[in-house]
Structures are given as C-alpha cells and as structure tokens.
C-alpha cells in the first residue's frame, strides 16, 4: 500500500499533462472526468494509505520512498523522495479530500466557461504541486512544490486575464509571495552551507547537534524560513495579496484558502519545528505576528462590502490563529485548526460561489439580502460554515480547534495572558463579522433574485463539507468535554507536545466558558447591529471616531495604501528618473567615441590623389625613421 505513495502527487500531475496536451480536443464531460477523477483517485489513495497508517503504522512511524536521485553533485544529492509521517499524512488527507470536493464543485461551477479545460489543467497542477510540497522528503523538493503552488496561484487568480483588474491581482499575488520565496531560498542556502544537507530529517538532527539554542545561525535560518512562510500564508506584513486574490473564480479562492497555498506556511513551520525551537526569539515572533495578524485582519473584515473580501480577511485572521499556536509551541493545535479551517472555509467559499453564480457575479453584500428563502440548502450549509468560523460552542468543529489554540496561548510556557487576550478579541471580531455577513446576505429584505440554482455536483461538496465542519472537531476535545486526544495522539510521533505552564484544569474550564461566551456574544452583537436595529450601526459610523474606525477597517488599516506609496510609487519614481538607463551611458559613450573618430578620419579622406601621396610619403618617412633610429 505504501509503495503506491508516489501515485498521490503523480495522479494530479498526470491529469494536468493530459489536459494540457490533448485536453482541448476533449468534450467537456471527459475534461471534467479527467480533472476531477485524477484528484478523486488521489484522495481515495490518500484515505486508504491513512487507514493503513492508523491500523498498522510503519516502523518508527514514517515511510520514506525514494523515486530517483535528482542531482548528484559532490556530496549534495537531493533525491526525488517522498516522506510520509503523521504530519504529512494529515496534510495529504486535507489537501486531497478538500481539493477533490472543490474540483467536483468546479465541474459544475465552471460549466459555462470557455476555458474549461485550461481551468482543470491548472487546478490539477495546483493540487499536484501542493501534494509534492507536503510529501517532500527534502527542502529542495518542497521548494519545487512551493514554487509550483505560487505559479498556479498566479495562473488561477488571473484566470480571467482579459479583465485588467484580475490580471493585476495575479501579478500582485505573485510579486508579494515572491518576497517571501526569495527569503526562503536564502534560508535554504544558509542551511545547505552550514549543515550540508537539505534532507529534512538529517538537517534537523544536525541542527540540534551543531547549533545551540538561540545561536545566530539558527535564528537566521528560522527567520528566513519564517519570512517565506509569512509570504505564502499571507501574514503581516506580506498579507496584502490575499484579498486581491479574490479576483479568481470562486472555487480557486476556496482551493487557495482552504486546502492549498496558504496552509503551506503553517506546514513549513510545523515541519521545521525543531529549527524554530532552536530559535526561541523567532518562535516568539511567530506568535506575535500571528496575534497581530488575526486582530488586524479581523478588524479589516468588519467593514468590507464584498462578500469574498470578508472571507479573505477571515482566512488571514484564522491563519493568524494557526501562527499563534505554532508560536507558543502548540504544533498539533495549529494543524488541528488548519484541518477544521480547511473544511469550514471551503464550505463558506463554495456556498458563496452559489450566490455569486446565481446573482451573475454580484459580490456586494449590500445588494443581496433575503436569500434565505431562495436557496435554503445553500443557506443552511453557509450557516454551518459561519457558525464553525465563529466558533459556536459545542456543536461546531471551529470551536474545538480555536479553543485549543486560545487555551494553548495562555497555558504554554511560551505564551501568556496578552496573547490569549489578543486571540479572544480576535474571536469576538470573528463572530461579529461572520454573522454580519450572514445577516446581510441571507436575512432582511430580498434585493435580488437568484436565477441559477446549484445542481448535484455543487450540492454534494456543500453537504460533505457541512458535515465535516460540524463533526471533525470531535477528534480532539478539551478535558471537560470528553477529553478525546485522537488527533494530537496521532501527531505525537512527529510533533512534540506543548510544554504547559503551571495552570490548573479548572482554569482551563473557565477559559473554555469565556471563549464560548465571547463567540456567542459576537453573534448577538452582529444580530443587534445588522438585523434588529440597523440604525445603530449607522449611528456608530456617523460618530467621528466611528467614522475613522470604519474607514480604517474598510481600507484594511491602510497596508495597501502604504505599500503603494512606499514601494510602487517610489519604484515608479526611480524608474522615471532613470528612464535613460544610466548603464546605457557606457554603451552610448562607446558609440559616441566611434562617431568622433569617424568624423576625424573621414576629414582625412579628401578624395585628392596628391593628398594621399603626401600621406604615403609621411608614412614612408616615419617607417624608415623608426627602422633607422631604433
């Protein structure tokens, strides 16, 4: 069974190759069958592998499959090798199952698009790259998948490239993540130069031996990898590409946000956790950045009018939670939140896609309203997703994962009350903006009519994801609610448990209740502001302080404007100033010299034969003089 591991990334790649080469001649049904089928087969294989892994784990809880040697260069021989351990298994399951559901959904969602085949080719390549990334045995192969994911995100965000806005968004996503990628490449060079290998297991062993805790090299390596992760996972200060990435088709947004791409940074940090433990300063930075991001993004989501932008900011915010968990050493809590987030965020995006498709690409929430009765099935699934995102206590998966993170952020020896408080405020903001979105979209007066209703291929993924968003939380519950630790137990083979500070179980229960109350009160506030008394929200934004806050939230705290001013404008200014490229001066100088010489020598060509004779005489005299005198 394990020997078939290579097929998991290979199947989507095969689908991509098939669709990219001869796919244009396929009828639509065959294109969909290849595109969805290849990912579906990979998902089935992943589930079977997971079953085998749980029932009879391989020796030492990992399985390594070397396919071939990539490069052989005295001493440096990165291999195309796959590494399966609990972390990568969780990632593979996450990516392939959620990816498959999104593919299935897209088969119907994109049915009218003229570039149906191109879409599925990119999607398959995306999935294949992501699976390569999570299964990679060495950092070089991981980087290949990492870049593949970046490329596909560019291709898919700019899928409707004929509209300049969308093409620009694609370029922005590519450039911003590139900043992180460059830092990550430097991190890899640093690791290779100092540890002599990129094979993950070997390099962590060597790092522990060679680098003392807090040493400069460990801090530099971890820091550079962190910048890479910040870019890919859209954390402050490299998060600005994600809201613009909404320019892609909705299933693409779902794929980028839920299953692939943004979780890559979280995976990288979890995978390299040893390195981060060696650099406590960087690890603390992870927590602080996560906390700051979840607050800023949560705040930015409050005033958006575009439904997809709200979801985009919520993704940034939720990944902030994962970073917070990683930063305090709660590795498995971060991955757990990633799994639940993948389910409910995919669900929210797909349900949102139904609305957008039904309203002819209308994304402004203020033009929706009252959709509850028109598309009840979508409404209920969206509600489940929203409840899970808002961490509605007891019934939703989001509650269990978020609560674990909040608990960890206080109780961990690396955490503290401040981080917890940040997370708690974030939780309040989350439930507030989530239910603002629900109330604006589905309640109130109907302002527009849905004229296209989802078919089975779109309903099935919604139903499955809704069930997962409710049920998957039960694999890891806090002490007082059953104390199930299946998930963290499963991961314990490859991720160390968090070191808890001196806190009692009773205290844990108090925090649990507080986070539950905060979540519910956020929902109630949203109900109050946006459904019961809409005048209240209006009054708040009319008040000067409220107006400033509203503007600040709508502009996402001005990051985009600041970057535009700082980087884009200054770059353009330098480019304008240097539009006669100064390196050209050298070449222009050479040309000018040749021109002057030509004028001088041209003047000597009088065309008179006697002048030429003088030239010959002078030449002869000089030559003879040299020969005689020397």
């Amino acid at each position, binding site marked *: 069974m394990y020997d078939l591991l290579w097929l998991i990334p290979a199947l989507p790649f095969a689908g991509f190759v098939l669709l990219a080469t001869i796919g244009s001649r396929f009828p639509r049904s065959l294109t969909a069958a290849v595109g969805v089928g290849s990912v579906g087969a990979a998902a089935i294989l992943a589930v079977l592998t997971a079953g085998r892994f749980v029932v009879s784990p391989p020796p030492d809880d990992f399985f390594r499959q070397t396919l071939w040697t990539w490069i052989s260069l005295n001493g440096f021989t990165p291999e195309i090798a796959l590494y399966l351990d609990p972390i990568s298994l969780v990632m593979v399951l996450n990516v392939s199952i959620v990816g498959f559901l999104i593919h299935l959904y897209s088969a119907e969602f994109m049915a009218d698009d003229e570039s149906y085949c191109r879409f599925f080719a990119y999607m398959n390549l995306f999935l294949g790259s992501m699976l390569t990334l999570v299964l990679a045995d060495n950092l070089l192969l991981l980087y290949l998948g990492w870049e593949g994911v970046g490329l596909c995100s560019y291709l898919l965000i700019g899928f409707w490239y004929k509209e300049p806005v969308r093409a620009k968004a694609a370029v922005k996503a590519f450039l911003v993540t590139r900043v992180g990628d460059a830092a990550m490449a430097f991190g890899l060079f640093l690791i290779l130069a100092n540890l002599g290998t990129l094979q993950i297991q070997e390099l962590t062993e060597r790092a522990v031996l060679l680098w003392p805790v807090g040493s400069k090299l460990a801090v530099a390596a971890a820091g550079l990898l962190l910048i890479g992760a910040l870019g890919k996972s859209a954390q402050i200060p490299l998060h600005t590409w994600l809201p613009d990435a909404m320019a892609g088709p909705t299933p693409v947004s779902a794929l980028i946000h839920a299953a692939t791409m943004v979780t890559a940074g979280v995976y990288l940090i979890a995978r390299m956790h040893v390195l981060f433990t060696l650099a406590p300063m960087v690890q603390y930075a992870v927590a602080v950045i996560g906390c700051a991001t979840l607050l800023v993004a949560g705040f930015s989501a409050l005033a958006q009018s575009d439904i997809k932008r709200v979801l985009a900011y919520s993704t940034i915010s939720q990944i902030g939670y994962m970073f917070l968990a990683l930063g305090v050493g709660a590795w498995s809590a971060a991955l757990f939140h990633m799994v639940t987030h993948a389910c409910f965020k995919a669900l929210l995006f797909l349900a949102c896609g139904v609305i957008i498709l039904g309203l002819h690409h209308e994304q402004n929430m203020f033009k929706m309203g009252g959709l509850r009765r028109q598309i009840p099935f979508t409404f209920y699934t969206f509600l489940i997703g929203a409840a899970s995102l808002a961490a509605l206590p007891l019934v939703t998966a989001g509650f269990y994962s978020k609560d674990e993170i909040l608990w960890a952020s206080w109780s961990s020896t690396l955490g503290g009350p401040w981080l917890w408080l940040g997370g708690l405020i974030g939780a309040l903001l989350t439930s507030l903006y989530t239910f603002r979105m629900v109330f604006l979209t589905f309640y109130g007066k109907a302002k527009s009519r849905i004229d296209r209703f989802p078919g089975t291929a779109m309903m099935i993924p919604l139903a499955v994801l809704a069930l997962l968003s409710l049920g998957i939380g039960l694999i890891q519950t806090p002490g007082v609610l059953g104390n199930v630790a299946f998930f963290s137990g499963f991961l314990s083979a490859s991720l160390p448990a968090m070191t808890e500070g001196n806190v009692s179980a009773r205290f844990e229960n108090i925090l649990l209740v507080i986070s539950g109350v905060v979540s519910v009160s956020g929902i109630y506030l949203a109900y109050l502001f946006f459904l019961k008394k809409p005048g209240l929200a209006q009054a708040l934004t009319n008040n000067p302080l409220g107006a400033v806050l509203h503007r600040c939230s709508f502009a996402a705290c001005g990051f985009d404007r600041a970057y535009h001013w700082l980087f884009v404008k200054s770059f353009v200014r330098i480019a304008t100033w240097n539009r006669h490229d100064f390196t050209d001066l050298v070449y222009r100088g050479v040309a000018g010299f040749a021109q002057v010489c030509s004028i001088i*020598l041209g003047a*000597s*060509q009088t*065309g*008179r*034969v*006697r002048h030429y004779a003088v030239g010959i*005489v002078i030449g002869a005299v000089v030559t003879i003089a040299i020969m005689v005198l020397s």
Partner: protein
Amino acid sequence: MASVPVEHGLLLAGILFSIGLMGLLVRRNILMMLLCVEIMLNAAGLAFVTAGAALRKPDGQIMMIFILTMAAAEVAVGLALVIQFFHSFKTLDVDAADKMRG
C-alpha cells in the same frame, strides 16, 4: 677609368628622387605626375647601381634591369589611365577627380 665616388652617386640619386617627389606632390597635371614618378624610379635605379658598383657586386645592375622593365609596364598602364582620365574629365587636372571625398 677614374671612379666616381659613391657619395656623389648617392647624392645625385637623392636629389633626383627629391625632385621627382616634390614634382609629384605639387604638380596638378597628371602627365607631369607620371613623369615625376619615372624620375623617382630612375633615382632609385641609380642608387642601386651606385651601391652595386661600390660593393663590386652585380646585384645593383640586376635590380636596375628589373626597374626598367617595371617602369615600361608602369608607363603602359599609366598612359592608358591618363587617356581614360582625359576622356572622363576633359582635363588633365587631377584635382578634378575628387569624388572619393569622405
């Protein structure tokens, strides 16, 4: 037979060469320039003969015969050129032919 000193021969050759050269440089009549070239050739021949006599070797006289042959050929080509020149420009002034000015 009283021998002529070698300096005298070389001096005469030098004077003749200079006259020919000056004539070549200052005259504008193409026929005259051709004559000047002939004078320079003969000056060179005289230098060879003088040197040959001084060194008591026949090489100088051999070279003179070569120069005479070459001069005959040169005159043949040169006069043909002069005729063509006159056909084209209706004058013997070389400065009329300055189409190659850079």
